């Protein structure tokens, strides 16, 4: 069981190791010369991600809600068939309210001040009052498994993504 301290320790020392996260997912802290390293976390088997899928998960730790989407067109930094699979932190980069994905709009919308983000264009702010794109979770596919392996952008509420 990894607690928050555990993550800090791993990230600060750069020590690689196998850690078992909650919900039965396993994550591996990859070796890195940096002071901080991102864990590698299984999200879902590629074969299970149908068109239109929206799968909630947490990354890089359990206090950081994220959403994996399979949109119906190629997306920037997407993986899988036709590069249609992307994932984003779901904390709005304006003031941290939880954004929700509206498939009929193809948009993330924040209920607090209505910032909207485009999952096909790296989470760019379509309109609204945030001053950062929605942080995109970097994905890869390994042995049929879609995995999270990093984050582009700073997650709301943090000064560094690994805390």
């Amino acid at each position, binding site marked *: 069981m990894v607690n928050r301290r555990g993550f800090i320790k791993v990230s600060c020392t750069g020590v690689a190791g196998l850690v078992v996260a909650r919900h039965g997912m396993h994550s591996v802290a990859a070796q890195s010369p940096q002071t901080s390293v991102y864990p590698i976390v299984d999200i879902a088997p590629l074969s299970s991600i149908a068109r239109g899928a929206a799968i909630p998960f947490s990354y890089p730790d359990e206090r950081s809600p994220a959403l994996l989407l399979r949109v119906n067109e190629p997306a920037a930094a997407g993986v899988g068939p036709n590069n249609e699979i992307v994932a984003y932190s779901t904390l709005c980069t304006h003031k*941290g309210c939880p954004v929700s994905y*509206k498939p009929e709009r193809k948009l993330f919308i924040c209920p607090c001040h209505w910032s909207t983000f*485009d999952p096909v264009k790296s989470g760019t702010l*379509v*309109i609204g009052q*945030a001053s950062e794109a929605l942080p995109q979770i970097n994905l890869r596919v390994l042995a049929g498994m879609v995995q999270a392996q990093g984050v582009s952008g700073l997650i709301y*509420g943090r000064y560094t993504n690994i*805390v």
Partner: protein
Amino acid sequence: MATVPLPPPDAQRFNTVCQFCIVGCGYQVYKWPLGRDGGPAPADNALGVDYRQPLPALSDWISPLMHSQITGRDGRRYNVVIVPDHTCAVNEGLASVRGGGLAQTLYSPERPTKARLSEPLIAVGDTHTPLGWDQATDLGARVIKAVVDRWGADAVGMKFYDHGGGGGGFENNWAIGRFFFSGLGTRTASIHNRPAYNSEIHAAGDAGLAALTNAYLDAQLADTIVIVGANPYETQSNYYLTHMIPNLNGATLKRKRAMFGAEAVERARMIIIDPRRTMTVATAEAAGGKDRVLHLQIEPGADIALLNAIARVVLERRWHDVAFIRERTEWQTFESYQRSTLAVDRPLQEVVNEAARVAGVPASQIRQAAQWIAAPKRDGARRRTLLHYEKGLIWGLKNYENIAALVDLGLLSGNVGKPGTGVSRLGGHQEAYVRPPYPGGRPALNVDEAVRRGEVKCYWIGGCNPVLTTLRAEAMEAALRERGAVVREVLLQTQGKPVGERVTRIVEALKAGGMFILTQDIYMTASARYAHLVLPAAQWGEMNLTSINGERRLRLYQRFMDPPGAAIPDWMIMARFARRLRALYLQDRNPLKANRFLDFDWKGDEDVFIHARYQFKGDGSDAMEGYAGVTYDLLRRLGNNGIQTPTQIVNGVPVGSVRLHEDGRFFTASGRARFIPAPQPWPGYAAQVTRQRARYPFWVNNGRSNHIWQTLYHHQLIPFYSEHNPMPFLEIHAQDAKRLGVASGDLVELSNDVGKVRALAYLSDAVKPGHTFMIFGQPRGAVGDLVSDHVDPTTTIPYYKGAWAAIRRISGAPEIAKTVSFLPQNVAQ
């Protein structure tokens, strides 16, 4: 990995106010040397925030754009973090998309802001080369003097900002006004966004109303909020989100009950008069429900007809405020208003139907708007309605009557000077007007025309960019280029020659149709490229400055860093030129002229602030900007909540004004407000405009948008913003796009009898078929290139919103459009 450094507990801390829009949100600046970052424990950072845990929603989070690094003149490097101030009553800790990036606008030799002007430049051939301040001032002052001595002061034209916020402030405005009006005495003056030196709301002034009558608090208290020709979600964002939205969704009900006791209160309703279904309409509906939001999607030029028809319904139903009209207005103006404007001799039905036809809205909506504005509440109490307007009305078909129609509606319904009411501009930039009186008359001289006709021999452009923002912009650019080229040639030929000889040759060039151009700015703008002398100015954060926001809240924006190189505040530039002109006139043994340039010996920002302060009396008679009795020290103590102007001196102490006209007095000779008669049903289009409409199929509405500030002078250098707006976008309805074979992202060309311009197509249901909307003043395409030179003859205010053009597809999406999302910008749920 993305990180932001945390300010250490001993970081330097400054109060400031956002440099951008009228709302004037409070911000805190933290500055500390590189390598001395704070830590995540609350005791280890200056914010006192526990960053060991992810912060909960609505905390003081530092987004990456809120941090940047700067280098001082001493070569030392610092981290700077600029975060919204949760103690400020204006924004309560919210940043907007623009304010969130303030830290990116700071000068740094390592970021794109290194493009800042850092030394005076003189034109040499097609480029510019540095020269020192003394030389630049000497040459410029000698040319100005030669022009004044030969052609008179009116041959010196000026186009300067008159605003607050970034690049403005009371300090700079006072020095500019002193130089041009008390010093030179020129009448050939114009304001940053228009071709003359005039009020944009003469009709409100004639009625006796201030431009900004209400407090932002009133938007929390109103029963109905009316928004005419404005889009506050995008362009007055935190006023809208912090004060209007909580009233729409009921969060201010408690406050209303506390204020109004037994009076019936409920969630606010909102009426939005706008040709577009904007994000404001979408978010108002999301917050308040569709049944409490009325969007009148008006046709261009129909404001007068629509507003007067609403007023006519109010009168007919006897919903007008008889007591207010009797006690607070000049009765005879009310009588003529009823006859001329409200057409009481015509049947109501006929007037309403006519307005509905002209405005393209159902008659039922006109009646409903009247009800929401003025019908008594369920307990019989008067409805409290806050009426706001901005450029859709100001830059509409007929400036004077447009404003008159709305002001009259406010007076008719008694909605001014009481909590929850007001008749106010929503505003664009912040305000800070304090100048000696403009020596010209009204209607003011059209300076654009004087430049084109050759009457202006020397043209000084300060902190604005007419090549991108004026009407008939291509013709203005041609005048700067062609008339400027004559002088450029002489500057090249006389390089290295004594200054006296150069000035003699320049005057010859001016006689031959040339024009000497000075620009002072922070960047080499499209207009500055044509200047012969380019003077580098300091910006926000590089000097202390003071301004008021949309509720007249006066604050001190503290200096926290050095300007680049030899750049200095605008007031200092004016003082340099004034002192040089004084010396030159003394050499001429002309003390009369020399003494016009006395009293420019200010030592610091506050000296100018205090000098200007003596324009105000503090006895209740001052204009809305009046800040009698205020000092920097007082403002430092008041922090980001400041004091609301005008101040009155009570027992030797300045006391602010929450709202104006609360005492029932107006700025007229009688002290009573005046109804301003306007023609009905509406005046129709001017001849140029009628011709354009007949020839070209698309109306090109235009204005500002959420992400970017004005001409993008900063934002084009910051990828977060420039990637969103690499070119001007053109909203166009899907039906029209289909007919033209245009898809979102395509490059299109708009053209008409005035000029042409390119834009990126943005398919949108915000606009009706036949309507389009383009952002104005984008560096890669100025809508002014399509705007005719028609101005309201009463006020010299252009009909910027009135351009019609043909549209054709040029190509598919250009490379720079790849970063742009073309998802709809008016969706909130």
